[in-house]
């Protein structure tokens, strides 16, 4: 091995260590940023190491690719708004997976026939996973962005068709594995994997996106790890595995937060079958006037805001922070209760509120805040529905039975900010709205919050 190759391997080792340290830093907001600087340094070292040590002969393509990628990357880093973070992340899963798949195809073209059986297996796995993650993530990004309807797209015999596609894909994979000289098998697998990615994501509704995002994250990581096996490159294996496991852990957490299994999310098509299941609770929803609501808030001791995806669609995160600050200046204790699946990706709501300058010390997780509701005067539910639906806890026949919820109904009074009288995203009836301590405040969340803030000032 030449000196430059040793240098390259050394940078890879350093990068691996720095990546792990970076993720360790993520365990606290105070250390997270420093951690990311380490990861950036590691990445930079690995790139420089590769350029020096990998016997590069043609520079043109590399330089053009690095330049275009950097320009688009910097543009994204600077200008993508926090509300679009889910689709940006989905898009980056697609990019990462595509890079892995293309490297795999390249390896196949260069060394396809001379590979060992194990390497060929890893190559097939890499290309298959990379391809299906690419199209799957693109569909997810489209759904999150609204380009593709967020409703589950379903048709008769869907699962059977998907099963056939899956079998064709894996069948070609195995055939390629056994007979590397049959080039057609490899490319059929590649093509079918692209189709399978689309089929996998279209039946899934927007509300299930946190799980899908985490799963795709996991796939993209595993595809990168498989690349590491093909190229015999340890830093790729390590970084890919870290990414894959992070995605896996997040999917498990998200599923737990909805009390559903991954199979149910992938093949259940939640949100399309619900119509029959609504129990008619009866009763009336009590409406409250803006001034009465303001009065309640202004004279409360403690207020908990419960934001849901409706807050994000109404762009009301700044309005809620302004109202919260007004209340705090009157001596009211204000906290925010964040359900794990609030929003469209894990942790989405925290980011939105942090962007609106809400200090993270005011953001509470479900387990922390639930015991506090009984001593809370007013809970304000903003554009959230299923995550505060007491049916999940009380009604074993409910479709969301067993899903952990924020127990706002335990607080002395509940004010629900809602666009209209219609049902929420899942189409389920929410008995919370009919409770005697609940009052409804209809209208666009942002303008309602602004008006509330004005009214509080005049109390």
């Amino acid at each position, binding site marked *: 091995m030449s000196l430059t190759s040793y240098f390259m391997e050394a940078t890879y080792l350093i990068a691996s260590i720095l*990546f*792990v340290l970076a*993720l*360790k830093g*993520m*365990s*606290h*907001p105070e250390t997270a*940023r420093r951690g*990311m600087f380490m*990861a950036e340094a590691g*990445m930079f070292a690995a790139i420089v190491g590769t350029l020096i040590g*990998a016997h*590069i002969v*043609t*520079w043109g393509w*590399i330089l*053009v*690719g*690095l330049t*275009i*990628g950097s320009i*688009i*990357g910097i*543009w*994204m880093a600077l200008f*993508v708004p*926090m509300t679009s*973070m889910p689709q940006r*992340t989905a898009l*980056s899963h697609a*990019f990462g997976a595509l*890079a892995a798949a293309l*490297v795999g195809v390249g390896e196949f073209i260069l060394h396809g026939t001379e590979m*060992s059986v*194990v390497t060929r297996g890893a190559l097939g796995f890499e290309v298959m996973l990379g391809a299906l993650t690419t199209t799957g993530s693109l569909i997810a990004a489209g759904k999150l962005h609204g380009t593709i309807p967020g409703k589950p797209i379903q048709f008769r015999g869907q699962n059977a068709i998907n099963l056939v596609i899956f079998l064709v894909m894996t069948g070609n994979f195995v055939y390629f594995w056994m007979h590397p000289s049959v080039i057609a098998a490899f490319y059929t697998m590649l093509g079918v994997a692209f189709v399978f990615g689309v089929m996998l994501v279209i039946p899934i509704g927007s509300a299930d996106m946190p799980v899908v995002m985490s799963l795709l*994250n996991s796939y993209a990581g595993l595809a990168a790890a498989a*690349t590491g096996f093909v190229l*015999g*490159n340890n830093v790729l294996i*390590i*970084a890919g595995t*870290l990414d894959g*496991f*992070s995605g896996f852990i997040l999917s498990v*957490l998200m599923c737990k937060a909805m009390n559903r299994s991954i199979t149910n999310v992938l093949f259940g098509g939640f949100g399309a079958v619900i119509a029959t299941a609504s129990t008619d609770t009866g009763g009336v929803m009590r409406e409250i006037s803006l001034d009465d609501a303001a009065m309640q808030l202004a004279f409360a001791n403690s207020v908990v805001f419960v934001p849901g995806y409706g807050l994000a669609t109404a762009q009301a995160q700044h309005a809620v922070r302004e109202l919260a600050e007004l209340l705090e200046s*009157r*001596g*009211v*204790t204000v906290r925010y209760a964040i359900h794990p699946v609030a929003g469209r990706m*894990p*942790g989405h709501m*925290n*980011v939105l509120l*942090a*962007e609106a*300058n809400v*200090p*993270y010390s005011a953001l509470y*997780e479900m387990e922390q805040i639930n015991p506090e509701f009984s001593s809370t005067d007013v809970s304000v539910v903003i554009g959230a529905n299923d995550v505060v639906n007491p049916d999940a806890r009380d009604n074993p026949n409910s479709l969301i039975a067993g899903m952990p919820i924020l127990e706002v109904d335990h607080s002395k009074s509940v004010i629900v900010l809602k666009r209209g009288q219609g049902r929420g995203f899942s189409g389920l009836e929410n008995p919370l709205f009919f409770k005697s301590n609940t009052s409804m405040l209809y209208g666009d969340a942002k303008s309602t919050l602004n008006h509330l803030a004005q009214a509080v000032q005049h109390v």
Partner: protein
Amino acid sequence: MNPAVLIASVYVFALAAFLGYQVISRVPPLLHTPLMSATNAISGISLIGSLVLAGATHSHIAHVLGFIAVTTATINVVGGFGITDRMLKMFGKRKDEGKKLPAAEASK
């Protein structure tokens, strides 16, 4: 691939999986979005494989595939780290702001 290298790779994979589980399960839900975008940026390390494909081979089609891979991987690395930092900056600031609130109790 010779068997010794393969076995070493499997070791690396297993240990990385274990380490990843240990480290990542400690990340609070507060930071799950930055975590996802950070691990995404880190897995953009497939850029180094793309660089080799785009520059260290003599096949024209490999160059083109490599070029596309270099571009998308670079977007992930640059964009991913950039946006993660932007998010973490928001979590870092104004942490004293939250503490001073109880002081206002008397005004009610």
